[in-house]
């Protein structure tokens, strides 16, 4: 698994990506709508582990 809980995604797209109490990533919305595209792309771009991919 690539993700190691840096949380950069959660800063760019709160409500879609969050960290839980064990500091693990939780994806709250696996199928975000078009209005969220920019923030999800920003989240993917900010991830140091390139752990997020957008599958259209």
């Amino acid at each position, binding site marked *: 698994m690539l993700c190691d809980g*840096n*949380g950069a995604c959660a*800063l760019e797209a*709160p409500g879609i990506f969050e*960290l839980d109490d064990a500091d693990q990533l939780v994806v709250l919305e696996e199928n975000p709508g078009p209005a969220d595209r920019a923030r999800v792309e920003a989240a993917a771009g900010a991830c*140091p582990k390139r752990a997020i991919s957008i599958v259209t």
Partner: protein
Amino acid sequence: MKSIAVVGGSLAGLEAATRLRQLGYDGSLLIYSQERRQPYDRPPLSKGLLTGVRDTASVALTLGESAQADWRMGVSAVALDARRRELSLSDGSSERFDGIVIATGAAAIRPRAISGRDGGIHVLRTLDDAISLRSRLHQAPARVVIVGAGFIGLEVASSCRELGLQVSVIEARALPLEPALGSVVAGTVAAMHRDHGVDLRLGVTVVAAHGAPQVERLDLSDGTSVSADVVVYAVGVQPETGWLVGSGLTVDGGVVCDEACGAAPGIVAAGDVARWPHRRYGIPRRIEHWDNAIRQAHHAASTLLANPGPPAGYDPVPWFWSDQHGSKLQVAGYAGGADEFRVVHGSLEARRFVGLYRRGDEVGGAVAIDDSKAFLACRRLLLDPEPTWSKVLAGLDSPVN
């Protein structure tokens, strides 16, 4: 704008090129890259690449999907005429451009008497450096000595311990990373390394190296000696600005830019090479973080194209992480010049905590070891253009956090 050159093919250069295309730039785009290899990501070079968990192919960087650019691999810029926006290249050619992105990064500082990787003395900046060091570390050297307890030095020390190697770290300061972390957290980091078997020697410098053709021993300033089969100098980097002498740009600890990352008309800079004033923190700074290379490159691209609007100030809250001995250290903002440090979540003893640094009545920065959810709450509060101490503390107490 019909022609843009990106000078530098690492993270900042690639991100600038990608963002230029995303913003709709459809002219010619040249990327000049000094190294003759596929661009690569730097953070794994002191971590997984050394331990063997990551391989060379896995650290490759690629341009964004839709970005189209012409690459000049193994071609570096050797001079710039900023007024004419004319680059002189290492292949003997020269070319004028409508716009230039300077992203030439920084190079490892080498100890005065030592050059190259000969004699068992290494630096760690490039992938070639990392491959060479990895190869040596996997030969089971009796003792690795790292000079410099900065983030790279401490990550290399962690990687060495993961490989089961004896490792000493020589640091001139009384505490490792004190300017970056303050004395309390620096003390915690020092203890963590010692608990993981690192021989940490603080408040000393290397005065002589013995052994030829391979290093065998280092003499330290406290009169002691340490045996050394591999030496890694991790004493920092300096911005790659030698090629800009005579260019007309202001060079002073990096390419000096305005608030929008502009160095001159039609010329911007981003990443490790750029020094610029940012509103939050006053004095012009250079930031060496991975995250900054990306954000600043995006901003510089926007400034260059004056798209989506006129050039605006780049005013990030800097952020970086460091993985050491299985723990994750993160810092947002600055610890330096703090009037107070306060743990606001967790505990130092548990080595799981978040702390805030107060400067005047504002939060200058936040730090965390292995407490990412609480740290994220701080990062969000620090997005406020005026994160006052009382406002941030109140924000952390509120139910939503």
